[in-house]
């Protein structure tokens, strides 16, 4: 494979963008002050955009680099395992639904958001060997759905508005 500096730079920019969005998300007031740990999943806007405009491989590469970098910079091994479980499940579901073509970006994003949360819960159940996560699971399905709609709408705008010329050499 030929080394393509522009491609590498583009991966870098996209990864940086997802990290900025993740940081903004931390600065925003929590969605539910009484239930910590619930996030909108803003970085998924970029992943969704890449999935539609650059394909599954590109989206997966950026998503996984982001999770590894964030965990190395701010988290620990546990945080990495939760993020990667959520990230991979979400990617798989979104790639599958995108391929089936029976949902719009909103449907794909909702399914991806909920899958992300379920992946994290499954990893927590595995690591802590407990099944007492029903409460979290329901709240996370609810918030994953609502934020998935918003992110799907934002993603759809980007997919529509950003011209193909920015990818050209």
């Amino acid at each position, binding site marked *: 494979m030929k080394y393509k500096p522009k491609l590498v730079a583009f991966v870098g920019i996209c990864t940086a963008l997802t990290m900025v969005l993740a940081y903004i998300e931390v600065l925003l007031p929590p969605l539910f*002050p009484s239930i*910590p740990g619930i996030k909108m999943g803003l970085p998924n806007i970029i992943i969704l955009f890449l999935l539609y405009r650059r394909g599954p491989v590109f989206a997966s590469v950026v998503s996984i680099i982001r999770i590894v970098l964030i965990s190395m910079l701010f988290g620990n091994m546990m945080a990495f395992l939760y993020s990667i479980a959520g990230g991979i499940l979400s990617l798989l579901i979104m790639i599958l639904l995108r391929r089936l073509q*029976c949902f719009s970006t909103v449907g794909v994003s*909702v399914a991806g958001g*909920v899958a992300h949360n379920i992946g994290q819960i499954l990893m*927590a159940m595995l690591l*802590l*060997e407990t099944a*007492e996560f029903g409460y979290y699971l329901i709240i996370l399905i609810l918030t994953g759905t609502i934020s998935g*709609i918003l992110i799907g709408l934002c993603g759809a705008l980007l997919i529509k508005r950003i011209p193909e010329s920015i990818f050209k050499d």
Partner: protein
Amino acid sequence: MKKASHKTIRNDIILVLSLLLIASIGLFYLFVLRDTGDTVKVTIGGENYGTYSLSKDIAKDIISGKNNEHHNLLIIKNGKVYMKSANCPDGLCVKHKPIFRDGESIVCLPNQVVVTISQNQKDNIVDAVA
């Protein structure tokens, strides 16, 4: 870029509505049907650590980790349980609202501490009747 057709939008709506339905059934079960618990169970990394009564006020410092480096201060007061302080990096368990219903839990992922409410007396009563 192909525009979203009516069919895909209809599928989106079906997906969203079914997820909301699942969540509301779950919330209804958790907040309406489920009773107050009576027992507080603490596990660390999946292993049993201790069981306490919800009706007796206590403060329990839960020490864990290889070198006893983790601590979570668990408070049982007025029939509710909460984490007063902890040295975990995220502090999420401390921010969690007090719990008291059967099946509710507070989880401290970094310290691997899980606090769960259960209801044992009801089972005993059923056993006695049966």
